[in-house]
């Protein structure tokens, strides 16, 4: 069995589990909706320059969604010795990482797809032609967050703090992605694909590629027993 098919099987397991319990989508989806609603009260989301605020709110919500989802997906593995089972399986450590990464990407993208239209309506935005850029930005930005997040979630699950530790690890390291994603989303929400947006997309591609490699190289050490 190739490493790719092992990864797909592991991701499929997580997604099937989610389809049956709907744990993550329900709780994280509602949480993200609440973040967006609360932020609408906390920030000026109407008038001039509201696209900038909206882009920031959107990515704070996405970051929380990713953090919650990744923490949950690793916590499930910790229960009933599932992690040991995974490690005893013939799947390579890299395949386990890719499988968890794919599953986390699936959850987070699903939450984003659900929340984005609600967000656009609630904040009275009109992205129009910027929607393609926004989608591209969500794909690349989320990939970056989830890549470092999946690596760190596998570490955080073994710490005393668990839920508290994951954000502490992910947030400082993911600042470049957050800046790039917020800037690109702002451009997208104002409906303009500027040359600046292209540079930010490239920065995200670079970040994603670099940390995918670093995570693949270091994850086997995280999973060592």
């Amino acid at each position, binding site marked *: 069995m190739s490493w790719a098919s092992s990864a797909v099987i592991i991701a499929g397991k997580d997604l099937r589990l989610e389809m049956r319990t709907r744990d993550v989508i329900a709780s994280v989806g509602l949480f993200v909706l609440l973040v967006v609603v609360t932020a609408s009260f906390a920030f000026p989301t109407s008038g001039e320059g509201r696209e900038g605020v909206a882009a920031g709110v959107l990515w704070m919500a996405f970051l929380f969604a990713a953090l919650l989802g990744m923490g949950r997906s690793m916590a499930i593995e910790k229960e009933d010795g599932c992690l040991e089972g995974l490690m005893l399986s013939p799947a390579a450590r890299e395949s386990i990482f890719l499988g968890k990464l794919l599953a986390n990407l699936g959850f987070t993208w699903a939450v984003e797809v659900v929340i984005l239209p609600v967000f656009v309506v609630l904040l009275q935005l009109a992205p129009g032609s910027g929607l393609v850029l926004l989608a591209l930005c969500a794909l690349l930005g989320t990939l970056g967050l989830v890549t*470092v997040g999946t*690596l*760190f979630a596998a*570490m955080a699950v*073994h*710490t*005393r*703090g668990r839920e508290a*530790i994951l954000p*502490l*690890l992910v947030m*400082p*390291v993911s*600042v*470049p992605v957050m*800046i*790039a994603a917020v*800037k690109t989303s702002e451009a997208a929400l104002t409906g303009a694909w500027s040359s*600046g947006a292209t*540079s*930010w997309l490239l*920065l995200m591609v*670079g*970040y994603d590629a*670099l*940390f995918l490699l*670093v*995570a693949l190289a*270091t994850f086997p*050490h*995280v999973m*060592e027993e």
Partner: protein
Amino acid sequence: MSVETEATGHVDDTQDDVQVAPPSGRRRLFGILTLVLTPILLVMAMLYAPEDLAQGPAQRIFYIHVPSAWIGFLAFFVVFVSSIAFLATGKRKYDDTAAASAEVGVIFTTGVMITGPLWGRPVWGVYWTWDPRLTSFLMLWLIYLSYIVLRGYVPDPARRARFSAVLGIVGFFDVPIVYLSVRWWRSEHPLQLVFQRGGLPAEMLVTLLVGVATFTFMYLYLLSLRTRTGRLRERSDEEVAQ
């Protein structure tokens, strides 16, 4: 392999299968050099170096601020290299070095975060500005603070070593990207130049170099001391557990 000769030292390094830290003789030398150089640096920074025309006496903090920043970077680079060495070899001494270097690096960069605003207030008129250099330094500091917090939250020593090595590697790779992204982020607001370089008077340069030497020896001394303290604490934990 060195022998601990202090009367109070209950530990004989020769009994170790792994060397506890750099030889205590060298550590003492680093300590003495730091002790001698620190007052010299202070006198040079206060009296020898000429006063900056534009910035006045506030500029003198430069002789502490800049060496702390440089040696802070060095400390985090040592964390990075030791982390790779640990994952490659599994030898505990590399983890000890990484942990000690991160702690000392955080102390130095905290010094930078304190002395910077003290200088910024009289010269820029503000304690803080979201300048790329300042912002990426803040992120660097936060990353290594999280490194230290992570170490405190993993009870199992083998796991702690592996996890923190991973963060030591990821964090170091992140720094250049943070710098790049913050520069682009701020690019629409051109800011004044932080340092107008070129033509630093000889007295200032000499004082700066003495500062760098002082902080290098201080780093080596603290690194050696922290490595040894960490090692001794681990051993006492093991003995308690037995």
